[in-house]
């Protein structure tokens, strides 16, 4: 067996997998495989029909949970000064609350963003500023 | 007091470790400890070769090596072992 044949084989394997990886990159089979990340402003200015992702903060006091079905909720996503009305109807992550940093994925239609994915980024609570808790009742938590 | 407490505690391990580190500098020039090391690595090599021979036999018995290769490789390994044994004896 000549060494040449092995070199050819290695090149072959690399070429086939290279082709495969780039093919999947251009034609992902699942619409959730890739999503473009846009800002709220970009979304407002362009008409985007694709599934997209957005990031921002949950506006304080904007979370409204449906009376009839607690799974459904809507809130306002803030990114800088832009705001976006978001509807979400699935199980919410534990860290989802006022001021939380979230990433939503879904589709935009007529002023409403219908999210099918809602992720919270690491809780500011644990990386945030220290608390002034001179008023905090220590004995209460120690028991 | 504060400073003494903060730095005093760390000073003790620091001083001890410095003594430990510079101690060799006061030794007379060290003889090269190669010879005993050479013996050891030769012995390890011998053990390794013995193991390789056993593995080779196993592979042959299972049928992972053909007859011709087996005999050739076995002879090669045995030659290496005897060379090492000779070296070990000469010392």
């Amino acid at each position, binding site marked *: 067996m000549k060494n040449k044949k092995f070199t050819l084989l290695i090149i072959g394997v690399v070429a086939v997998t290279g082709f495969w990886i780039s093919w999947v990159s251009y034609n992902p089979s699942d619409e959730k495989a890739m999503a473009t990340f846009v800002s709220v402003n970009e979304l407002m200015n362009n008409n985007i029909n694709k599934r997209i992702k957005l990031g921002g903060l949950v506006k304080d006091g904007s979370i409204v949970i449906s009376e009839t079905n607690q799974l459904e909720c809507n809130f306002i996503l803030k990114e800088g000064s832009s705001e976006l009305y978001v509807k979400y109807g699935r199980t919410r992550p534990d860290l989802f609350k006022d001021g939380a940093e979230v990433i939503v994925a879904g589709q935009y239609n007529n002023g409403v963003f219908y999210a099918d994915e809602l992720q919270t980024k690491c809780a500011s609570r644990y990386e945030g500023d220290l608390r002034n808790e001179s008023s905090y009742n220590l004995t209460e938590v120690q028991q | 007091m504060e400073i003494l407490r903060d730095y005093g505690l*760390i000073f003790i391990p620091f001083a001890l470790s410095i003594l430990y580190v510079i101690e060799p500098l006061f030794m007379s020039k060290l003889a090269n400890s190669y010879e005993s090391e050479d013996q050891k690595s030769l012995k390890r090599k011998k053990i390794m070769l013995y193991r390789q021979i056993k593995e080779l036999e196993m592979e042959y018995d299972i049928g992972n090596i053909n007859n011709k290769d087996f005999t050739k490789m076995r002879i090669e390994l045995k030659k290496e072992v005897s060379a090492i044994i000779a070296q070990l004896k000469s010392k």
Partner: protein
Amino acid sequence: MTPVAGGVALSLAFGFGLLTVFTLLIYTKNQDQRLFLVGQRLALGVSFFIFLATFILSYQLIISNFDVDYVARYTSIETPFIYKISALWAGQSGSLLFWLFILSIFSTITILQNQYKHHELMPWVIISLTVTQIFFLILTNYVTNPFKPTEADFIVANGNGLNPLLQNITMAIHPPTLYLGYVGFSVPFAFAFSALVNRDTSPLWIQSIRRWTLVAWLFLSMGIILGGWWAYQELGWGGYWAWDPVENASFMPWLTATAFLHSIIIQEKKDMLRLWNMVLIILTFTLCIFGTFLTRSGVMSSVHSFTESSLGPIFLSFVFFIMIASFGLMYSRLDDLKSPKKIESFTSRESGFLFNNMIFVVLCFAVLWGTLFPVISEAIRGTKITVGAPFFNQINTPIGLILLGLTGIGPLLAWRRTGSKNLIRKFTLPIIIFFISIVSFLLIGYKGYVVISFSLCVFVTTAIISEFYLGIRVRKNKFKESLHSALINMISKNRSRYGGYIVHLGIVFMFVGFTGHAFDREKEFSLQVGQVEHLAGYEFELVNLSESERPNHYAWISKLRVTDHQGQFVTNLYPEKRVYFHNNPDINRRQPHSELDIYSELNKDIYSIFSSIDNQKQIAFLKIMINPLVRWVWIGGYILVFGTLIALWPRKEE
């Protein structure tokens, strides 16, 4: 043991580190044995001061000294004792110190173990390890010091507390295990680097690093599996692997390390692939550092990442430094790395190993591609594109299946060349069984990858069993042993080989579990007490809702009665909705948490999440998932660990 002392210890370690490198460099020039001894002792000193600093930080965490910023940020008075200790690796600066701590353990072991061994190699081994220590010491001394005092214009009465997600035993041991793996590869790398410097191509050092590599590999594997287990038990999305950048960061060095473990066998036995092995170990070590960088820098958005920090550029420079230094050195040593022998045939064990290596590296590249795709697309096209799990699954499934197939084919091939007679003898049975299983799985109604994956699992298992059978038969005939003692002797005389086969079996189990993912079902719904809901032939009845106050949280508990389609009782599930820090007057400081309940059987898991509660109407909002075969993944993990331990078990020097 004040925090100031901790800071001083870190500075001293840094100073000792510089001295170590300096002394040993002089030693390599003048060969004065005294200097070598001094260098060794200095290196031990570096580790000693790092141990000291780590103990001081742990002590501060235990006594809750909130004057230290790190202690105030990651613990609070009510944090349970064990999590006060695990807070050591919960935050950025602490985890970097912890990295150093583990590296120092390994460095100390390496130095002590090799005091009278590998005399030529040791100076550069120590230099490489110390340079790595110095890098992390720069970070902990000057960039993110764990002993930084608290800066607040008020007295910090209580700390922020540890994230409840991290208050979990698995989460307490997952990072250390992973770190032991990451850090473990610095030792084989140091040996390889030193061998390059010394132009040493003997198989002796390869022998010694094979064990180290295997230990590091074992820890890395366990760390990855524990991470998956934790995600599955705690995160509540019903899966164990999300192709998150940080998960990928641990998977990539695992792939190259696995390739390395296979290809050093060839170098040991046949003295081939010298250059390739160097490339693999350098890549593995670089990927470990890169992985730490991805985890700790916040460059990638990920569940693991900390908020953005200044670590990025420094880490990247170190990664480039390692790559340039090692590949540059490798280039200058190309002549020594030419292997005297060549692979002779496609149908040889050697070529099987070569194939397996190529596929591992290709898989690693695919994962790297997907992980960096958002960064690349933003740089080139200006649009930020995020890549999700389906992308990775689509790319990696066929590659993974090829690897699985090779797991079965490789061990059946003979060294150098498999004659056609031998090929027929060894492959007939596994291939027949492979085709039978394809047909039967198709008849059951499975499709696509599922059929291929299950059939390959059967194929590989058959191949492994037949290897065991052949070995036992040989011993029985040759040594007249009983079946039992033939098995035991065969394994104990060829530990790495049969240990390896057992690891392969573990991988097969895991693939069965991965394939089960294709049959996942899930449903989100609300239930009033007494109502029922159906999913995949199971009936779920909400029996009652109760509440309970516990030491560090408040919990609402729902009781779900699960029956199968025949009305037979299966189990009761008790998913909980908890609120941590429930006594905190500031509502925003309170932390809700869904504690899942999972019923696990060999063929499926029933996974329940209590997402929210309507107290007035007594309605629970639940998410139920049926995840088939998940348990096989964990069983595969146990088998993998068991097999690796067999391969690692030391042999008596006969």
